[in-house]
């Protein structure tokens, strides 16, 4: 059953990575709001990690799919769809000219993502421990 544990471990790290990326974006937005950095830098920093975030999330979903964790995959799907939709509509990048008007929305969106990911993280940890214990028996 090593494979299962390995897959949970891998998804755990991917989720950690995603959380980091989201938190980084949130911090850029918070900095912007309180004027530590100017909108140009903020937008540049956020935009530089958006694509990695999308890719990581895609990989995570794919991992759930191929390892047969259907329920986790289904839970991933809304997030994935949202990302794909944003990407298709070319709305995924932060717009530096409108960043202040969109600030609340951008923040809210990322906080929701963060909450989503944290739930995921707990689920993953649960499954990880569960499969380790199962393995022991």
């Amino acid at each position, binding site marked *: 059953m090593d494979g299962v544990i390995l897959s949970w471990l891998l998804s755990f790290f991917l989720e950690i990575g995603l*959380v*980091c990326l989201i*938190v*980084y974006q*949130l*911090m850029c937005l*918070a*900095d*912007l*709001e*309180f*004027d*530590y*950095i*100017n*909108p*140009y830098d903020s937008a540049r920093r956020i935009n530089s990690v958006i694509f990695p975030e999308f890719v990581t999330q895609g990989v995570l979903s794919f991992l759930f799919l191929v390892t047969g964790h259907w329920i986790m995959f289904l839970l991933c799907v809304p997030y994935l769809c949202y990302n794909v939709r944003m990407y298709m509509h*070319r709305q995924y990048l932060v*717009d*530096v*000219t409108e*960043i*202040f*008007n969109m*600030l609340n929305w951008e*923040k809210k969106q990322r906080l929701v993502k963060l909450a989503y990911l*944290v739930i995921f993280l707990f689920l993953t940890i649960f499954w990880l421990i569960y499969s380790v214990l199962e393995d022991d028996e």
Partner: protein
Amino acid sequence: MSAHVRSLTLKQRFSEKKCKIATSAELDGSTISRFSLQLFSFLSVSLKVKVSLLVLLHPPLLILKKQPMANEKTGPPNFPGRPAASPFAAAPPTMTPFLSAGPVVGSEASGYGASSPARFNGPSISSPPPSYVPYDVGSYQRFPTPAIPPSQPIPPSRGPPPSQPGLSPSIFPAGQQILAPSPPVSFRPQPQIPSVPMGPPPQNVPLTPSRGNVPHSSLESLFPASRPTLQPSLHGYPNVQANPTSQVPSAQSPFFAQPGGYVPPPPVAAPIGLNPREQMQHFSAVPPVGPVQGLVEEFQSLSVGSVPGAIEPGFDSKALPRPLDGDIEPKSFVEMYPLNCHPRYLRLTTSGMPNSQSLFSRWHLPLGAVVHPLAEAPDGEEVPVVNFGPMGIIRCRRCRTYVNPYVTFSDGGKKWRCNICALLNDVPGEYFAHLDANGRRTDLDQRPELSRGSVELVAPTEYMVRPPMPPLYFFLIDVSVSSVRSGMLEVVAKTIKCCLDELPGFPRTQIGFLTYDSTIHFYNMKSSLMQPQMMVVSDLEDIFVPLPDDLLVNLSESRNVVDAFLDSLPSMFQDNVNMESAFGPALKAAFMVMNQLGGKLLIFQSTLPSLGIGRLRLRGDDHRVYGTDKENALRIAEDPFYKQMAADLTKYQIGVNIYAFSDKYTDLASLGTLAKYTGGQVYYYPCFQSTIHGDRLRYELARDLTRETAWEAVLRIRCGKGVRFTNYHGHFMLRSTDLLALPAVDCDKAFAAQLSLEETLLTTQIVYFQVALLYTSSSGERRIRVHTAAAPVVSDLGEMYRRADTGAIVSLLTRLGIERTLTHKLEDARHMVQLRIVKALREYRNLHAVQHRVGGRMIYPESLKFLPLYGLALWKSTPLRGGHADAQLDERCAAGFTMMTLPVSGLLKFLYPSLIRIDEYLEKGSTKVDDFKNSSKVLPLSTESLDPGGLYIYDDGFRFIIWFGRMLPSAISFNLFGVELSGFPDLSKVILCERDNEMSRKVMGILKRLRESNPSFYQVPQVVRQAEQSRERMLLVEDQSGGSSGYVDWILQIHRQVQQSA
């Protein structure tokens, strides 16, 4: 692009960093990032693991914000300051009254609220005490208000005391009722009585000596002297309709039958909604005897009745209010706070700030301000310039507020208290002055910054991040075939040449040119050359600048070369048959040339950009998109290139003005984005022909080049604790949450901002606003223009309505509506506007429905009487009206961009243009234009105003439409045009110019006169003959046309919606 930016030299990066610092110099003091805290608490609970990581990533979040002061000096820029005291001496005599009014002191300042007259814009504003208002009944009715305490005595012999609303109907006619049974229903305890007898306010608002001890207990209801004995119907009984407005008996007025024996009821005290504090405020506004007088609030009403001759119920269209006098600035507010800046600089949508969230949520109109920082002042009212010299500008340590008339001095003059954040600051030694017995500074009359609401401060080097830039004009001119054919190129070249002498900032002014079709042409204008050298770059993929210097030259040094270039420009390209336009690459090239200095970029574009990066496609004529969710995409930039470019341009202090000339679709939505985020402006000349529109282009380009421009500016509006500006609307780019970056701003730009309440309850009596515009003047001086205003905090909704300013409200609503069209359908934007008006009127109705039987009448506050009409005009304005067929997409976008920058008066004129009949004046003998001014009157914009035998001028500030009636004697048209109009095939080709006869000269005189009243734009006369143009109907705002309702229907519609859930 990005490659270029990345390869910036170190020096540029350095200055960029500095830029950020300068920005923060403008900033407010230390705030802990609320959000960060939130985030942290969240993280610390659920994500303890990551906190350490976070901290590593981002230490500053944990640190309390320490505001860097703007003391980064940047070496050279030590510009000779102005002679220190000279401006003071020049302080105009008008200051003296203010001075005598005494210094306004923070705690005392609340007393200013006391002098509030009861209403705005009233026709009888100048007439004495408000309580007599009912005598001069205008074309509307007035009613008692709910805001009046029950205890108020009533003016002698005007009527009996008010009875409680519940009672009055049953005992009607309730004349004999005495006051005793009407105790105060809800006498709210007064939280703060401004007990300090304040320094006397302005001369025009006499303070009563007794106001400190005006009785405000219910005992005063026993005032015997003022007890009236007879009372006509109370509480808005319908018989008050016996007044000129409503000649029509209202359906709901059973008592109307009692003929005019009744006068409109006097102001009566209404039993509820009492607010003692307000009461106090009112007292002082009126002579001591009549506390009641100040308590009048009246609303106006329209009766729905059957109009004679009409079957359906409706309003009498003649009785509807119309803004025929144009924009009226709220005078009473200025009188109340004489130290405020003039309303031309700052107008609040209501000068009564709500004191609580709940009150704020009942104010459905936008709450905010329209700021016009560089508004042109008439002669004699210029903003005084103040130079603090070496001691530096006096500002609050904490909130960075500039010293202003509302700060208070204490401690013998050693300290001053900031009026915005209440921090006690030290007065620098050089600035010290003794206080007199009243606590006023003895040198008050020497200090404009302490006695005037608007001052201009000369900023020392701390306010510079680099040496003040020279005025810089860069021209990006499309030379493709359509520009040449339409004559645009020639007009532009000639106009620029004419203006060279008048460009501001001589001798530092810099200038440069770049032309493009399918290739890009650079011009070397080095002063040592005789003729400009042209360099053609045809590689559009990888743009480079062929010559690092000499593309931008000092005008005074290279004047000969520039002259030679402008002379030869039209002929150089006269045989050009190139139809392409490499706009994007050319823009990038211009950016590369300009980004060292910044400046103003004027773009002349006459085709759709078709080559290279930023090329656009025809997307405007697809009518199927309208009505779908994708509709709004047509009105925003198609290619992200434009937004990105706009952001970069602003970053390097480049302001863009777009001149668009095409007769075909040019995608102004995309091009205009450049102007939108750089503080620029869009000029649109559809189907440009130099013979017809040449004058307009000449005038507007010349104005653009020669008007006073503020360079590399930032604008911030500070306001007192508890309120905050959250949304800004206009052409600028936000550089931080409340800092507007304006690379180039001038006297024709206004900005709007919306307020929100941060605290649930405001404890202060007055909210102060301070607009600060930090800019570089053309002469190379760094300056700060500061406008300060105070507004009272009110606790009553009625008071907010009374103090509302229709002009500012319409201005904000317009901007909100236009912004809505960028994200939603046109229809949604229109409904948003309508809904807000309906909600506001519904709230107002609810406010009054309790005490008065408003029945089926439509009621609205005096201050907002024009709001519905402007709403209708907005509904029908170019950016919002109809659908696909009702306006060209480009036209819509251009109008939208223009309206986003218009100041209040210009916008109101655009929404409700003036219509003047001139044929009578023409046929009269008198030749003086003054006579015309006296005899002409502005007519309502409906078909009824148009007489087939008349000649009219329709002036919306952007064009004149000369309307010929069908029956107009042909002699007139012959005199004006030299031809018979009836035989003329295409009236749009008719050119009105001066001919050698009396009548023609008179008409030109009138047009000239009208133009002088609005110098921002040039109005091209356009001839329209009655019923010959389909679009003629759209001009008349009050008429029904193509799916939109007329004024009467509109009012009915609003009225119904107001009643629906009233």
